[in-house]
């Protein structure tokens, strides 16, 4: 799932939570999903240290 897709769904959930008087069960489900999406967004934008190191190594030794 891409950043923009995750972001769009997140925005929808926030709008939904803001607008309606949704019941507790829906609230739990939506919040759980939103937490997942937030994590996806962050992960799709940022790299782990291992990834960065690998990329830099590859770029420094393009032949290897």
């Amino acid at each position, binding site marked *: 799932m891409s*950043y*923009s897709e995750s*972001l769009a769904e*997140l*925005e929808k*959930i*926030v709008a939904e*939570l*803001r607008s309606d*008087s*949704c*019941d*507790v*069960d829906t*609230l*739990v489900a939506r*919040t*759980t999903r*939103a*937490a997942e999406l*937030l994590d996806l*967004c*962050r992960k*799709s*934008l*940022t*790299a*782990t*240290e291992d*990834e*960065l190191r690998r*990329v*830099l190594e590859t*770029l420094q030794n*393009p032949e290897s």
Partner: protein
Amino acid sequence: MKTPGAITLLELNSRVASVLGAAPGLNDVWVIGETSDLRRSGPHCYLELIDKDPDTGQPVARARATIWASRYMVIDSEFRRATGSPLASGIKIMVKCSVNYHPLYGLSLNITDVNPEFTLGDLLRRRRELIDRLTREGIIELNRRLVWAVPPTRIAVISAPGAAGYGDFINQLYTNPARLRFTTELFPAVMQGEHCAESVVDALGRIAARSEEFDGVVIIRGGGATGDLAAFDDYALAAHIAMFPLPVMIGIGHERDITLLDYVANQRVKTPTAAAEWLISRGTEALERVRVLGAALFDTVNSAIQRSHRRLENIAGSLPALAQGVLLRASQRVGPSVSQTIEMAVTNAVRHRKERLTALAALVDTLSPEATLRRGFSITRLNGRAISDSAETTSGDTIQTTLATGTITSIVK
């Protein structure tokens, strides 16, 4: 057989030399021509000046010329300062020269001065013509109207592989403090000299064939010495960039001068490093958007929980009376066993909701930056932006530290 009166070639050439030496109008003349075959040999500069027929482009006059070392240093640096490019082949030029004739080496011009304004005017006029042409063809704004992906992370790079500027770009991009993830692929090109434009067009073609794999193109060339920018005033290259399906950013390492490409590219920055910074700031904005949404979510869910709690308390408060009424009516109709079932169902429903709310509160707590702050961590901001590395500050900066309760303002020593 001997014809009386014959002379040697040396004598003839010497006569030519002496006639030319005494002739008027051959010393310190300002001459307009186009440079060709320009080369440096030792400290001196050798070239040819040619005059072309404006209609056919065919040479109609040609002369060898020399700029001796003593003048070349001054002339070349003045020319660079005024035009942004060194003296090179293929440019219109106005020179002050004297005609020399050497019995062995023949005719040549000794150049003692150059008027860079003339070349500059010619370049500007040519660029203006090309801009008009791109405008007439309706393509000049096409690339500038393209919108970058949010955020752009898959970047096709056109650069000379070993160039310092490419190293700067990569280094900047992959060591960004927010650890944004970028993927880059290098499409090598010759970034100076007469094949530059052609080579960049070729690289663009290779990217276009795989355009769905990239968010944009960055064309960069190392900083440092002022290079030859004439290649970037090329019509074919400008037209390719204008019509390219992906947004193109150029950072060709030049502070002051603009080229035709500046009129067609979606983004122009001064240096390769600035190109990387632009991409990083787009990514940082996207991350910030996520943070803001997370905070909004936290607030919304929190107040929803509070609302639900209030509602439950209201229900709980009116429950005894309600339940009694229900039980009374029920017992009148169906007897005690059903009324017990109803009582249990109501109690269970209330308990179930309370449990869900407690679980939700815990979940929301983990989303919250405040939870982290309560554990003793703090957020340090410089100019409103959260920082994670002390190297981002310099002595004298004012920083804000946000704690679980309150904010401290301090000055970096």
